[in-house]
């Protein structure tokens, strides 16, 4: 006899019958698990896509490897740059004196708009990314591209028209003389520049790109500062060589010039540095997205594994009858696996659909507009790994359970002695009210076969849910604390005063009287920030000078060791030290060349982000705090920057940023033709991103509670339906419908309370630990806080969820009919 025509065919028809009978449960369970898994997979794939976004964007835009700023457009500099070693391609951007006009006059509100043009090559080596429309045609004077910020301020959109005037020269945005040419231009593209999405809020500048054709024939004075983007033969590896050569060329050239003439500048921006900055800024988002995705996927897999074990147990009656009829344990196992396999395969299909469907919503965050290939994306790796976890693990669990049940053989069809729970017996003896005892019995005694309810595993998943809930809340309150307490990201001042876009200087002789005279400033501290290096690695250095009032306390926040006290001592950011493999107490070399010296590291600190100061930037965990006596180790550049180029400020309750800004623009410390800016607390972009990722937290909490309520409700409905015989007996024993309802509500509460008692401490430990890790990676002060009010609220929410989940099932229980239960007994051995 062939197996497939005999027992095999019986296995087939039993499996089909099982699927028919439980088809709805298969579809519903599969859809629910698949949805959770799909969201998880979508988030993981989304995190990966967001993480790889910037490198992909750079590749897609054929970005340069290094940017060199030689100063004002100069044909000799242009030639020199293009002949630097290993330069594969060069493109330049130039500020031109082209201003937006209205009614024949330049628009004053758009004074901050910096019109750019190029020789047309930004359409070549350095492609500008587009968020809409197309790139302008460099041969047509009437086409412009604007960034989103410019479009918003000027109320423009694709196809809008605007007048642009070309001037011989301007003084800080105010045109000198009459326009040499006026053109009506059309917005053909909305561009997305790296600065638009990845930099601090203060770097975001409204920008308009005009066509090189518009500038044809314009006087030399209409061209201003220039930037060169260079693509090199061996990428980042060639940068050092190119920069060294350029510094040499500039020094040689500048020696030939009279003393007061500026000459070629040597500002350098390395693309690899920018990539690191961006990856830091994006990291919190990627981390939280990935963590959420993993959490959702793990939850789905656990749910599936648990559910599949349960499905096998619920079918155990039928498979053991089939064994009585002559199926072997192996064949019975196959029958038992039909529903689990069908369910996880359904779940897998749904998950892939959801994951692919949601993929067009990623990359997440403001970076999205840089995506070179937006839309649906199939992340084969994530899908394959997710599916493997989603299908293999639950099927393995189901197989083990099915095999164990089948091995136990036909015992299911004998009257086995079921051992009652000792806990229930003890509670009953202690004189508790009958509905409570009944609740407890239904909660801890799982029942068998079709009466089987996975109460224990639901209890465990409730505990896990509450743990995740508390973890989320603890983590979230720390995230909020980070956003609300600037000291956590190194900002101990209320604001900062900068001049000339961060390139100016403050002479203490004129600056301090001005500061002291103001009643809306109750403390200040002079700061010098500049480029320097530690053991050859470039970083930002900060020196703290004279102060008054609260200003003396506006220093970086020490997180290990102590502050520097004397010349020869430094404190560094944690990431800076780590990259040097140095520790507190070690000696390192500060600076390079003539000013270099050995100094000792006395501690690590969280440093305030000091905006774009003199083209350098401190980061919470990157930078070095240097004593004034070691200032010679800074790379000072002529009349720019230090000794003092930032003033940290303490505000009074009546301080007004607008007033301060207006007054600072007339400050005695300003060089002619420059202006000043007063900022509030400057948030590093990774902190802003983290805060915005934290706003998704409420959705996560709501989801978790929703899942908890749904899971509880399904379980209790199952309890009521599968145990209707028990309920019928309770009824014959004199329980009123009200007491039956109470029994179920009591069960809901038992789940909630048990889950809270264990989930609260577990969640708190987990949340604090997670935060410490996250804060360390972010480079902010890691000390976790615990906010009790939201935790209390969450526990109330859990109890309410328990009640809510019990509501519908309790109504069902109150209605449980005795006759129906008796009839059911014919099929269910209870």
């Amino acid at each position, binding site marked *: *006899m062939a197996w497939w*025509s*005999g027992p095999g065919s019986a296995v087939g028809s039993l499996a089909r019958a099982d699927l028919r009978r439980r088809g709805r449960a298969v579809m519903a369970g599969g859809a629910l698990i698949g949805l959770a898994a799909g969201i998880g997979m979508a988030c993981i794939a989304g995190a990966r896509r967001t993480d790889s976004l910037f490198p992909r964007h750079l590749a897609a835009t054929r970005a340069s490897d290094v940017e060199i700023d030689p100063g004002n457009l100069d044909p000799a500099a242009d030639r020199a740059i293009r002949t630097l070693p290993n330069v594969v391609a060069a493109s330049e951007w130039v500020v031109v004196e082209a201003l937006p006009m209205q009614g024949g006059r330049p628009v004053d509100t758009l004074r901050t708009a910096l019109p750019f043009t190029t020789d047309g090559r930004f359409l070549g080596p350095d492609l500008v990314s587009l968020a809409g429309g197309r790139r302008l045609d460099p041969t047509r004077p009437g086409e412009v591209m604007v960034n989103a910020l410019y479009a918003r301020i000027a109320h423009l959109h694709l196809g809008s028209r605007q007048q642009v005037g070309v001037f011989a020269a301007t003084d800080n945005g105010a045109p000198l003389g009459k326009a040499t040419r006026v053109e009506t231009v059309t917005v053909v593209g909305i561009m997305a520049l790296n600065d638009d999405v990845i930099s601090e809020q203060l770097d975001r500048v409204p920008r308009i790109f005009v066509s090189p054709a518009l500038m044809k024939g314009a006087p030399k004075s209409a061209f201003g500062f220039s930037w060169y983007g260079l693509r090199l033969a061996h990428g980042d590896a060639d940068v050092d060589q190119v920069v060294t050569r350029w510094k040499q060329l500039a020094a040689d050239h500048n020696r030939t010039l009279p003393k007061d003439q500026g000459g070629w500048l040597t500002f350098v921006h390395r693309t690899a540095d920018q990539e690191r900055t961006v990856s830091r800024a994006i990291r919190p988002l990627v981390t939280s997205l990935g963590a959420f995705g993993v959490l959702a996927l793990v939850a789905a897999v656990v749910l599936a594994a648990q559910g599949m074990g349960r499905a096998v147990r619920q079918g155990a009656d039928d498979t053991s009858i089939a064994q009585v*009829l002559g199926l072997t344990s192996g064949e019975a196992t196959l029958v038992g696996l039909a529903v689990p396999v069908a369910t996880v395969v359904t779940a897998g299909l749904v998950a892939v659909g959801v994951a692919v469907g949601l993929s067009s919503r990623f990359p997440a965050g403001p970076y999205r507009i840089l995506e070179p290939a937006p839309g649906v994306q199939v992340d084969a790796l994530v899908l394959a790994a997710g599916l493997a976890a989603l299908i293999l693990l639950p099927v393995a669990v189901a197989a083990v359970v099915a095999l164990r049940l089948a091995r136990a053989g036909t015992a299911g069809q004998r009257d086995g002695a079921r051992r009652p729970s000792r806990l229930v017996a003890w509670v009953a003896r202690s004189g508790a009210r009958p509905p409570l005892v009944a609740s407890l019995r239904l909660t801890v005694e799982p029942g068998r076969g079709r009466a089987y309810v996975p109460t224990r595993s639901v209890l465990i998943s409730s505990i896990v849910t509450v743990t995740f809930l508390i973890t989320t809340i603890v983590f979230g309150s720390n995230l909020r604390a980070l956003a609300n307490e600037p000291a956590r990201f190194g900002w101990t001042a209320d604001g900062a005063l900068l001049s000339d876009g961060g390139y100016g200087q403050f002479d203490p002789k004129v600056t301090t009287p001005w500061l002291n005279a103001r009643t809306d400033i109750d403390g200040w501290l002079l700061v010098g920030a500049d480029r320097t290096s530690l053991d050859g690695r470039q970083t930002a250095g900060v020196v703290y000078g004279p102060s008054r009032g609260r200003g003396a306390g506006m220093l970086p926040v020490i997180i290990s060791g102590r502050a520097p006290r004397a010349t020869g001592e430094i404190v560094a950011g944690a990431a800076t030290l780590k990259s040097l493999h140095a520790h507190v107490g070690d000696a390192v070399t500060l600076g390079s060349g003539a000013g270099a010296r050995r100094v000792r590291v006395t501690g690590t600190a969280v440093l305030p982000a000091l905006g774009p100061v003199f083209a350098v930037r401190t980061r919470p965990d990157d930078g070095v705090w240097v004593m004034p006596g070691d200032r010679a180790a800074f790379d000072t550049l002529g009349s720019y920057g230090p000794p003092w180029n930032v003033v940290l400020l303490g505000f009074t309750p009546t301080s007004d940023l607008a007033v301060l800004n207006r007054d600072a623009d007339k400050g005695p410390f300003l060089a002619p033709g420059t202006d000043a800016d007063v900022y509030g607390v400057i948030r590093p972009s990774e902190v802003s991103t983290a805060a915005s990722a934290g706003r998704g937290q409420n959705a996560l909490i709501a989801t978790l509670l929703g899942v908890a309520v749904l899971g509880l409700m399904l379980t209790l409905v199952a309890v009521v339906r599968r145990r209707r015989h028990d309920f019928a007996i309770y009824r014959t024993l004199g329980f009123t419908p009200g007491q039956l309802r109470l029994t179920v509500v009591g069960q809901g509460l038992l789940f909630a309370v048990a889950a809270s008692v264990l989930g609260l401490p577990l969640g708190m430990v987990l949340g604090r630990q997670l935060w410490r890790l996250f804060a360390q990676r972010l480079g902010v002060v890691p000390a976790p806080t615990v906010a009790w009010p939201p935790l209390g609220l969450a526990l109330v929410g859990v109890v309410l969820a328990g009640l809510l989940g019990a509501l519908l099932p309790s109504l069902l229980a109150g209605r449980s009919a005795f006759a129906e239960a008796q009839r059911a007994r*014919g099929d269910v051995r209870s």
Partner: protein
Amino acid sequence: MAEAEETVPAGEVLVVRGVRKTYEAEDVPVRALRGADLTMARGEFAAVMGPSGCGKSTLLNLIAGLDQADDGEITIDGELVTGRTEDELARLRRRHIGIVFQFFNLLEGMSALENVVLPAVVAGTPRKRAEPRARDLLDLLGVGDKAKAAPGTLSGGQRQRLAIARALANEPTLLLADEPTGALDSEGGHEVMELFRRLHQGGQTILLVTHDDEVATVASRIVRMRDGRVLTGTPAAATADSAVPAG
């Protein structure tokens, strides 16, 4: 099975010899069977009676291979039941055993007909032959019109008749029934007993457990049990009609 052939006289369908079974319940051993002996000839219809807890169901379960004996020997049609693995027992049941339970144990996801077809298919009968025979059985048992019905929609008596039809589907050497009328009213009980009587007339060997004296009168022989032992294990003289087996 050489040793079995030596010990089992021809024509004896069931031999139970010195079977012991002890359950461990709540730390106290319960001696359900303390050396039970029983022999049944082909075509016999025996009714097992005895006080509650004397081991009737245990004996039946051991014969069906649903449970393992601690000691002693059971053979069915010359094949040893004791000392087999679960899978060997399953194959043995395909050939030799049909069981009727007090609480029916029907498969809820399948129609009445499918419930009856299944054991035959498991035993290796091609579906083409199993189905007509299943219909015949349903007709024979008076539930022919319920072939397509779900078991849950039938009355208790109808369900039990369906269960009997299923037990007969694989043409078993031995039909076992544990209080088949226990869950039925007296009318339903009568119907079912009448069925057993007719099956016996057709030559089916039947071993049935009951508490009901009236039910027992249908049998050709009464087997009394007490405290895990069989008191009268030899065939009664009254079995004139041990004719050719039904299958």
